[in-house]
């Protein structure tokens, strides 16, 4: 199922939640909508689901206009942020809901529904828990139930709103892998909303970054991380040192700091440097090393430039030994954006 979003607009009162959003989602893709809270990512997801309807623009499923079609007619599977499991129904009943609700010849037989529920419980590794109630499950298990409930109707697209938001770090990690595995096993087009860039980069085929109701950039995790098109994307995706300064004489200047400007026009500008793009360089500028701490295979070095700017540097542990006292560093790469 391909999905096209065409100049979709949505306002809540006077507040514009979506501002002329265009987005193409390929069949079988796993796409992340990434952005800070209030960026419109959940509104966009709900618009695709048919839980919100846009003020202007179109939503197409496989070329068919579904802008004002009901959620049920779109055959979407939706996983809600707090799961929205039916508290008074067993896990099996929850998963069967979308099949039980069908009428006439569309409705599978009881045995068929039971078989399907078993199959889904197995898919999310919850076999044997069908008779429990949601309140008797852990957060991670509830999340799996919500996922299999959404998959029960064999949706043409699976939509997840902050699917791992309410879980602790370890469960979150294993469920990410789980979602990827389920996606690869079912091949269903999947879109999930997250504010966690690490989650988006790890899980998604492509990431769409939203800010203030607009899409800032769409691309593979590598593209958005390594070639951020806007200052917002650069600051939001991955770690970055941010410098306010100006471009002049073919380079970016901020105090003693000199960075390659990459062809940005002269004038006020903002530069971002990833911590791992700073290297020791005798031709560079001076920083005083304040503290170094180990993070796995890397060492994070906190330093201060001559004019008092804090700078974060990331280096291999072997390399980091050389960051002692006052050293000279330069940036291998910088992302400079005209202000």
């Amino acid at each position: 199922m391909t999905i096209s979003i065409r100049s979709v607009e949505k306002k809540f009162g006077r507040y514009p939640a979506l501002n002329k959003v265009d987005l193409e989602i390929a069949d079988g893709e796993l796409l992340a909508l990434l952005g800070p809270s209030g960026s419109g990512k959940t509104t966009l997801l709900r618009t695709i689901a048919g839980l919100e309807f846009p003020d202007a623009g179109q939503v197409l499923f496989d070329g068919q206009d579904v802008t004002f079609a009901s959620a049920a007619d779109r055959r979407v599977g939706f996983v809600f942020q707090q799961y929205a499991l039916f508290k008074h129904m067993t896990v099996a009943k929850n998963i069967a809901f979308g099949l039980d609700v069908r009428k006439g010849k569309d409705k599978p037989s009881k045995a068929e529904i039971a078989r399907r529920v078993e199959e889904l419980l197995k898919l999310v590794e919850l076999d044997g828990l069908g008779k429990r109630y949601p309140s008797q499950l852990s957060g991670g298990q509830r999340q799996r139930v919500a996922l299999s409930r959404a998959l029960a109707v064999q949706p043409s697209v699976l939509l997840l709103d902050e699917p791992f938001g309410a879980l602790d770090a370890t469960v979150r990690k294993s469920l990410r892998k789980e979602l990827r595995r389920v996606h690869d096993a079912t091949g269903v087009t999947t879109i999930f909303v997250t504010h966690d860039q690490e989650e988006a980069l790890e899980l998604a085929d492509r990431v769409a970054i939203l800010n203030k109701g607009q899409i800032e950039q769409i691309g593979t995790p590598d593209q958005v991380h390594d070639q951020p098109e806007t200052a917002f994307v650069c600051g939001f995706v991955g770690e970055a040192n941010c410098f306010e300064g100006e471009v002049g004489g073919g380079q970016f200047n901020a105090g003693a700091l000199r960075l390659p400007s990459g062809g940005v026009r002269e004038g006020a500008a903002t530069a971002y440097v990833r911590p791992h793009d700073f290297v020791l360089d005798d031709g560079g500028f001076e920083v005083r090393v304040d503290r170094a701490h180990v993070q796995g295979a890397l060492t994070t070095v906190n330093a201060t430039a001559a004019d008092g700017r804090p700078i974060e540097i990331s280096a291999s542990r072997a390399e980091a030994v050389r960051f002692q006292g006052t050293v000279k560093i330069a940036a291998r790469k910088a992302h400079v954006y005209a202000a």
Partner: protein
Amino acid sequence: MASVSRRRATDDPAWAKALVIGVVAVFLALVLILPLAAVFAEALRKGLGAALEAINNADALAAVKLTLLTAAISVPFNAAFGLCAAWAIAKHEFLGKPLLITLIDLPFSVSPVVAGLIYVLIFGLQGWFGEYLVDNDIKIIFAVPGIVLATVFVTFPFVARELIPLMQEQGNSEEEAAVSMGAGGLYTFWRVTAPNVRWGLMYGVLLCNARAMGEFGAVSVVSGHIRGLTNTMPLHVEILYNEYDFVGAFAVAALLCLLAVVTLVLKTALEVAQPGMRGRGGH
């Protein structure tokens, strides 16, 4: 081994706790338990036989019947209305919603006597529809329909008030989940919304019932106090008392109290059975 300390940071000194609990206990004893005890003591002053006899006569039994009939009509009506109103208010946005919320509270803020007078004004002999009703031989005021109407009016907010905060807290996401899986509005209501509020609904119904059986002011205005015909239990108590039939008055009052106690016991049982019902309802 030392016993586990149960002290908490928010604990107040022992004397303060004792003082506060003591004040509450004395207050409850004076204004609640003492009068209740007095009712039963007075009723039984001439023995259980006399008390039973006071209840077991045609007029008293008619009053009991009318009270139960009134509750049996007004409680289901208000339960259905309250459920509809709470659903509309908590789950939907519409024009005039604040007005509807205010209107639901109206019976709480208006004196019951005024509530009764409203019906006299509308349906009474000199009222707006008085002539029409007389011409068509329809009796509302000084008859059972008037009593039921007045009771419905007074007990109207209980169920809705109980359900609105509960439904608002539960939010819309379960309904959205149901709809996204293809459930229609009615199916969603019966299978998702209603089960989530069933305990709150029962609680509201019990409160509503307690008030419906006990209502005096509004019913007094519209009833006409015709013995054996339009006398509810509270009205019957007043009549007997005014006739210096103290044993009779207190015997009927005691019966009314017993009905109320049964209601409260049921309510407490519900709370014990479902600890979450006054809040999240699960989890």
